[in-house]
């Protein structure tokens, strides 16, 4: 299993993701530096969270124009699996690998808290095929610009073609604030047309231990990696 984590100036969650991957596979992932123009063949590339280039201009805008992105796009067109978490999701959108936009949280505040994700009825994808529609995962978020928006046309295309991976869900009847950022239709993550690219705002790498953070993130990453290798 050949995995790599892409690192940009300002990426923060690369170590966290590497720790999670090592826990699952027994091996640390390769590091791809933003200035690299070449990379070996890989099964899975993860673009981790953080504040690449300080979030300047727009979140992920500058990172999406880095030399390494060309390589990542080639990996995708070869059918490689690609996971973008939080800032990683923002970078995938800015790089036009995934459609739509991620804008400021509706309440205009950074938010760090637990969320409940509901697996949606989606196309075949190594990231979700081990789950059933309606399965729930408790995974934390921490972001300022996680509000996914799309025009009607795009929204229809995503919904009709099973490209919505997760939606934020109420964890109890009395909960009103279950969507942390006001995203359209509570969208928390979306898939590419071939299901092998997933962009998600929540941080699975922060949920890998029963003592703190829970283990739903570990479950998700483990099953994803099993499917990618398998």
């Amino acid at each position, binding site marked *: 299993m050949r995995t790599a984590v892409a690192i940009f100036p*300002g990426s923060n969650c690369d170590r966290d993701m590497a720790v999670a991957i090592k826990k699952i596979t027994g091996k640390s992932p390769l590091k791809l530096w933003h200035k690299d123009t070449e990379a070996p063949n890989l099964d899975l590339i993860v673009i981790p969270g953080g504040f690449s280039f300080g979030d300047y201009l727009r979140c992920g805008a500058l990172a999406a124009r880095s030399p390494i992105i060309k390589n990542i796009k080639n990996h995708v067109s070869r059918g490689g699996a690609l996971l973008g978490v939080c800032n990683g999701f923002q970078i995938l959108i800015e790089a036009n690998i995934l459609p739509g936009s991620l804008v400021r949280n509706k309440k205009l505040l950074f938010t760090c808290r637990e969320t409940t994700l509901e697996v949606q009825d989606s196309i075949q994808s190594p990231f979700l095929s081990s789950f059933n529609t309606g399965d729930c995962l408790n995974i934390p978020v921490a972001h300022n610009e996680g509000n996914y928006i799309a025009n009607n046309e795009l929204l229809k295309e995503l919904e009709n073609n099973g490209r919505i991976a997760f939606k934020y869900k109420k964890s109890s009847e009395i909960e009103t604030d279950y969507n942390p950022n006001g995203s359209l239709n509570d969208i928390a993550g979306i898939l590419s047309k071939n299901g092998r690219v997933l962009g998600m705002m929540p*941080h699975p790498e922060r949920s890998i231990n029963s003592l703190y953070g829970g283990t739903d993130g570990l479950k998700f990453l483990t099953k994803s990696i099993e499917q990618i290798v398998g």
Partner: protein
Amino acid sequence: MQKRNLELRDINENEYIAQQESNLDQALGMGLSKDEFELICNKINKIPNQTELGIFSAMFSEHCSYKSSKKWLKTLPTKAKHVIQGPGENAGVIDIGNDQAAVFKIESHNHPSFIEPYQGSATGVGGILRDVFTMGARPIALLNALRFGSINHPLTKHLVSGVVKGIGGYGNCIGIPTVGGETNFNKSYDGNILVNAMAVGLAQKDKIFYSAATGAGNPVIYVGAKTGRDGIHGATMASAEFTESSSEKRPTVQVGDPFTGKLLLEACLELMQTDVVLSIQDMGAAGLTSSSVEMASKGGLGMHLNLDLVPIREEGMTSYEIMLSESQERMLMILKPGSEEAAKLIFNKWDLDFANIGEVTNTGRLVLDKNGFEACNIPINPLVEDAPEYDRPYEILQNKKIIKSDDFQSNQTLNNILIKMFESPNIASKKWIWEQYDSSVMGDTILCNGKSDAAIVKIHGTETKKSLGKGIAMTTDCTPRYVKSDPIIGGMQAVCEAARNIAASGAKPLAITNNLNFGNPEKINVMGEIVGSIKGISQAASTFNTPIVSGNVSLYNETNGQGILPTPVIGMVGIIDEVESCLGISAGNNNTLIILGQKQNFTEGWLGCSLYQEIIIDDFDGAPPPIDLKTEKQIIETIMTLNNNKLLTGAHDISDGGLLIAICEMLFENRLGLNVNLPKALMSSNSKDHLLHSWCFGEDQNRIIISTNESDKVVSLLKENLIDYYILGTTNTSSNLNLNELDTISIKNLYNINETTIPSLMDTYKS
């Protein structure tokens, strides 16, 4: 260097002016006194030019020289077996076992945060992080102690919003979790808010970097962001009271860039993996001045710098401006000669400026060249060693009036008081604040913010087969109204509460960093508050063997003569050997709650200086609750013993608001209920009875509530060790707090009030 006299045609006009002789008026304008100006002229045997004068004014400012407090800071206990580095360096260093060290410090950014709350607090966070990683430690956690004015004051919400955004803006971007702290509101801070930022980092014990310059001829290297005109005279602003014209000082506030901060952190830590860094210091208050002077002074050496080589981002900067600029995200280093090129590669990789700007000398002088002329040539000693140290007159005022429960005429039921307490922003949940901070980045946060009394962060890489590893516990504490009433007791209490919080989370208290925030030390009672609280802190710190290893003093927190409540914040760090044994505040169902440190027959609680008193009379009065250091130590050792024997499910210390508030906070998460055992003497009280109120809301010290599933074993251990205890009762799912069925106290209702108080005050978003 050109030896002929400088003429206007030689250099730009502003630099020419900077190199002209100064005068007394200019000295006074820079915050120096007449005596200080004369002292300077005598010490250097000439009248300083303006650049030289600027350098002196920065180094002699209260913020840099600690002239009003130094004499008393020297009396703090700073040594212990586990202390590797005490006060005097960029941060304190303690041994935490496994060949590792914890590096930590707390620092204030009060005045800039009042003027520009976002940037003021953001740069406060940036600065404290640099103080930690300059020692070779990767920062692993941030905490902050915030004090704002009355919630109804017109500026308060704007300040709260800006400060919280600024702390989050910097900490989140640089990727270090903000895991704890405290936020209080009081009208004494209306014109002077307090923003104290604390950072904790981890380093290898034998790879700590210090700031003393070494080796005449060694290169002096500048790295980081370019220098601009930010914050010139920021140090002198921090040392002066605010007046009407303070809003004109807006352009002098520094602007931080957390992205560059992150690059600088990574580049420095990468360079420190090699052996070429001989000494290093960050450029904080008074920028290049304080770093070059302090590094040279500590090494007993001098420096010769060429200011034309300093990377600048503005045109035509003078020697004065370059030396006093407080542009952020810059470090000064002394490297092994010959290593400059290799070091430069690392900084270029991270897109940071790297400039060789001069060398260490053995002249003991600071010599600065600009545009081919000597802009500064002064001896270093008078700047640091000979900086003034004042012995200001003081009077420690101690309020000895004991407030009795029947001094009150509240006519309020228990339920009403509880509602009022949770409607007070001082008690209510601060979730609105901490959700704006990323508390789980770096993947090691075990407990944080409202979940436990102290934050616990795992020490990366200490996992073993049977444990996730060791953890660092940290907290900040202070009860300013106690300090105002009696500075000595107030100082003691801050340390005691911090130690209780560390112990209640399952950790052992180790050491302190303190941020002493006070008003104008030239006032005899304010100086008394400083001296008194230092005395109290010393006594308590000695009792717990938690020496002070670093800290900061912020004085002149006054506006138009109105000063803040004396606020000596204690930042304490502790160690937990196995993070699995950490304790949160929430009780489980069917757990027994027991108060450690409370006698069976205790009935009259201490209401003097309590939040209960503040709710009833909108003010505080009387002596604060007394402190018995011996008992405090006992209680802390007891809870550690109980936890080592795995007898506890949770723990929460009793502080602001007293017993009933602490009980509610333990019941909230699971919306539990409790039938409270009342002492016999209170069994026939009615809900408005003041003696009962004093038992419920008194702020008597040295008490921690524990929750347990093994109450028999707990009680047996307590009896064996002669520890006072009181069994409150066993939790249930009724969600009602029942004291002899006097009131219907709905925990669900109080929980909702607790959760919504601050959001309803602060949320501007209307859906």
